[in-house]
């Protein structure tokens, strides 16, 4: 298994541009997440999904959109990029089995985004 893959690894955007960060997992995990990590800070949840067709906001959803049309893919869309969205973005997934699940999150390698 490749695990959780993210593309691109790096990207520079100009203010006002849009882009989609791709995330794919091949572990048949039902839960997926998008986080951002600013320097010296912990991970902040942007959006998450508990299954195909279901998404919900996290702590910092403004300026982002997501969709989950398949179990494997969970793209994150940035509309009208702003300097405040400069960050490292991580995608993660979890396989849940009800009460016995460890809820261990598997993370991708991250996308480093700079908005200038």
């Amino acid at each position, binding site marked *: 298994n490749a695990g*959780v893959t993210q593309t691109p690894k790096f990207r520079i955007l100009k203010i006002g541009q849009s882009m989609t960060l791709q995330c794919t997992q091949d572990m048949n995990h039902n*839960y997926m*997440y998008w*986080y951002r990590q600013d320097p*010296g*800070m*912990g*991970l*902040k*949840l942007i959006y*998450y999904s*508990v299954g195909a067709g279901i998404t919900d906001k*996290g702590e910092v959803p403004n300026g982002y959109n997501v969709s989950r049309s398949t179990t494997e893919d969970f793209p994150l869309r940035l509309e009208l990029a702003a300097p405040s969205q400069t960050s490292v973005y*991580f995608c*993660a997934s*979890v396989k*849940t089995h009800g009460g016995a*699940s*460890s*809820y*261990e*999150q*598997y*993370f*991708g*390698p*991250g996308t480093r985004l700079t908005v200038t």
Partner: protein
Amino acid sequence: SQKIEQNSEALNIQEGKTATLTCNYTNYSPAYLQWYRQDPGRGPVFLLLIRENEKEKRKERLKVTFDTTLKQSLFHITASQPADSATYLCALARGSTLGRLYFGRGTQLTVWP
């Protein structure tokens, strides 16, 4: 809102000693707490999970304790090695939203020879 504090931004210890990292939380009691390791330029990697009804968990040189009265978890690395140098993140999940984690800022551990 949930607040999670990790004791310090950086911890430096000598090889062979035990590293102890602290995670304190406020407000809601978590259903479980997890510890992750993060190396520079990489995503976090899961290490251990401890549930609200557990006091201690061990895995090789790692030990996690959970004190719901003190609202605190301690993460120990015994016989530390330079390869243990990394940032360690504490994360907790509330019972109402299992699977959704709240992360602390992390503690950067450096183990010197």
